[in-house]
């Protein structure tokens, strides 16, 4: 281990395998990457860190030729290169393993490892040679997998390792692992790390993307942190603490929103009596492990935690968007099972997903139709909302939330992110929920809309609505919530009243430097 690190240090002085500098990528309306740099050296594990939307995937895809770059240079092996497809970057020795295993489960392990490079004799694929070669590579990596077995018969972890074996077989100089551990258990992660160390010792440069801080600290030599599509810094792992890393990832929002803070402070909640919602031992395999939670009337619960900590998964369970496989749930002291969103809505629960575009917006329908969708759905199609009621509600919320354009017939797809988010909030407010679950309601929207949404949440709570508020921005969570829940590794690791809690307190809890089980 020590020897390897020394080797890695040695490699630092050699020429980088890949050097990206000043790379910018933009999509219609979004600057996904702004002048970002990344330097990767042989025999080093380089962690690429950042929250959702920081630009990690975009950077990887820009390097591997999935996206084309607008500005900047990519130097591979000392020469400037532009790749137009994954095939081209693979030919240059760059191999990528994605979070969702991008292999074909309907084929055998050996085929998956060697697709496109099968050994042939007389133009025919030599199946025996293929299985042998695959077997040799697997053995080299210390993996005991039958090359002839169908990939789909193996658990995800093994599939992930096969994907790495495929990458290794290409003789990759650079191996990119994009969140390879998100679905692995501890033993499987250990196995993966072992393979990574073997490869590092062979001089392969490895990019490692993960949300699990321990893993990053356990395996990486160097880290690059991105935030909001911008380069934050490059750090030597050995010289960095978890707290410093988390701070670099989350950053600080400088805008002070005094008004909201005031509103939130004036607002006090009685946490006596029966809670509105109570869950015990709520969980679902692979997403959340056993969470207890109580939500009182008029209370804002803030959930903090990094991406992958289980914060979104918990929200989905509370709404029935995913079906929990354990635990009890009580709404107003009555036992309930929420197996579909429909049931949750009937219990006056509302949920605004973090994936605005894929799970919220009906792009080709108008603002008005998008707003009344949830209410209409619960009335059933036979009882349309009377035109006058619909007009009144839509007009009211367009005004109240300051939605632009003000034309209720404007198509949702033509709205900015912030306005879409407001329409989605209106969709739920129209149903007059008792519990509103907001997952990242302010992500990717401009500062003005952000302030308006925060103000709205504070006002709603004041009027007695309970809110579960999830955000990657800790300032925002602290500003709005009465009680704070911190999640990490799919578990609730801390819960406390939001009294004199500071951002750095939360950062410490997340970074695991303070264990507080109170």
């Amino acid at each position, binding site marked *: 281990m020590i020897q390897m690190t020394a080797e890695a240090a040695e490699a630092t002085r050699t020429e980088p395998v890949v050097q990206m500098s000043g790379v910018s990528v933009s999509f219609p309306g979004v600057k996904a990457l702004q002048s970002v740099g990344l330097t990767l050296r042989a025999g080093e594990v380089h962690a690429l860190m950042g929250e959702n939307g920081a630009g990690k995937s975009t950077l990887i895809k820009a390097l591997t030729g999935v996206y084309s770059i607008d500005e900047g240079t990519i130097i591979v092996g000392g020469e400037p290169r532009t790749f137009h497809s994954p095939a081209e970057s693979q030919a240059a020795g760059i191999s990528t393993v994605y979070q969702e295993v991008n*292999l*074909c489960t309907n084929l055998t392990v050996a085929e998956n490892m060697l697709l496109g490079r099968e050994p042939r004799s007389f133009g025919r694929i030599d199946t025996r040679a293929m299985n042998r070669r695959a077997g040799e590579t697997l053995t080299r990596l210390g993996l005991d997998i039958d090359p002839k077995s169908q990939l789909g018969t*193996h658990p995800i972890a093994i599939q992930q390792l096969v994907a790495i074996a495929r990458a290794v077989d290409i003789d990759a100089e650079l191996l990119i692992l994009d969140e390879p551990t998100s679905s692995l258990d*501890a*033993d499987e992660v250990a*196995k993966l790390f072992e393979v990574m160390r073997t490869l590092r010792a062979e001089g392969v440069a490895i990019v490692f993307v993960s949300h699990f801080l321990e893993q990053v600290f356990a395996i990486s030599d160097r880290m690059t942190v991105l935030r909001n599509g911008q380069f934050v810094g490059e750090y030597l792992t050995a010289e960095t603490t978890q707290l410093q890393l988390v701070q670099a990832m989350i950053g600080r929002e400088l805008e002070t929103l005094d008004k909201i803070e005031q509103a939130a402070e004036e607002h006090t909640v009685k946490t006596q009596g029966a809670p509105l919602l109570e869950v015990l031992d709520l969980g679902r395999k692979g997403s959340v492990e056993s969470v207890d939670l109580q939500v009182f009337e008029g209370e804002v619960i803030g959930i903090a935690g990094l991406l992958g900590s289980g914060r979104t998964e918990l929200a989905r369970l509370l709404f029935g968007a995913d079906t929990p496989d354990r635990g009890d749930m009580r709404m107003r002291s009555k036992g309930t099972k929420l197996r579909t969103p429909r049931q949750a809505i009937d219990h006056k629960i509302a949920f605004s997903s973090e994936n605005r575009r894929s799970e919220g917006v009906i792009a080709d329908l108008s603002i008005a139709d998008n707003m009344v969708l949830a209410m209409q759905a619960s009335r059933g199609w036979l009882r349309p909302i009377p035109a006058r009621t619909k007009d009144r509600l839509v007009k009211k919320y367009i005004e109240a939330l300051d939605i632009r354009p003000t034309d209720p017939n404007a198509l949702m797809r033509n709205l900015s992110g912030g306005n879409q988010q407001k329409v989605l909030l209106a969709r739920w407010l129209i149903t007059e929920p008792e519990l509103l679950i907001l997952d990242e309601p302010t992500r990717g929207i401009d500062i003005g809309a952000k302030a308006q949404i925060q103000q709205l949440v504070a006002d709603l709570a004041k009027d007695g609505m309970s809110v579960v508020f999830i955000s990657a921005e800790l300032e925002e969570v602290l500003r709005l919530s009465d009680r704070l829940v911190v999640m990490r590794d799919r578990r609730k690791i801390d819960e406390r009243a939001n009294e004199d809690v500071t951002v750095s307190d939360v950062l410490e809890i997340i970074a695991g430097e303070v264990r507080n089980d109170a």
Partner: protein
Amino acid sequence: MSAQAPTIKDLGSSLPDAIRRFTPPPRFYPVLATIALFIGMFGAGSIRYEGFSSPQTILSVLVDNSFLIVLAVGMTFVILTGGIDLSVGSVVALSTMIAASTLRSGWSAPLVIVTVLLTGSVLGLLMGLVIHYFEIQPFIVTLAGMFLARGLCYVISLESIPIKNGTFTSFASGTIEIGDYFITPSVVVALVVLVIAAVVLHMTRFGRTVYAVGGSEQSALLMGLAVAGTKVGVYVISGFCSALAGLLFSIYTLSGYNLGAVGMELDAIAAVVIGGTLLTGGSGLVLGSAVGVLVLGLIQSFISFDGTLSSWWTKITIGVLLLAFVLIQRLFTRRTT
């Protein structure tokens, strides 16, 4: 998460567990089921009807459906990638029309054959290009191809044209005797096509890419495979096979008929599905499709042997078999995903 102190434990230990959780779906199961169905039907027919048990029953099914086997082979390629080709029936009709009309105007048989095969392949190529590069659903593109080919039939001639060419007629009347039984040269052509298709699918990079694209087009793309070429290629193959099936059909009927082969695309799709190929792509064997054709043919033999059963039972039985296989597939895919 004890990643900091990795316990070196072989993942192989979790393998038995994996096997218990996923009963492995060996790719031969569906084909075996189809073969079992075929044998069962043959057995039942042999018990019920005199003379059914003769091997000639099976050989006759081959003789009467050789063109359908070729068609089903082409369709299998397309369906394996997750696509569909509705144009095949019309292309068969168009091929018979081209063959009959060019032969009538005195073209030599080899030239006619080349022309027909080329026309079918080009039609397939065009459809494949539109499907892949304009990202339009195969369903609607091949529907247009179906209309186009059928329309071209009528452009060639509004009436059916008899074929009197010596090469074609001698091919049609030729038989190959196997002991006391016989097959026709068309059967040999169909079986050769079947073998070539199997070799291409299982022993060439193109063939494996067909399966990879059907398994996950996204993955195939990220693995750097030639997805575009493969997706277009399967429609070329299907077009070629349709044209070849059209030649066999024109030999079978010795005419070019513009209303011929109506609905044959449904027979081909049914044969492929009954043969165990997943309509969502990625899993299936051409052998299965051939057995699927035999099952369809045997249903007809049943009805002709019985004499009291009406012809419509063919369609109803095919429908029921389709349903059964679709439901089984549904269960199968639900379990593995």
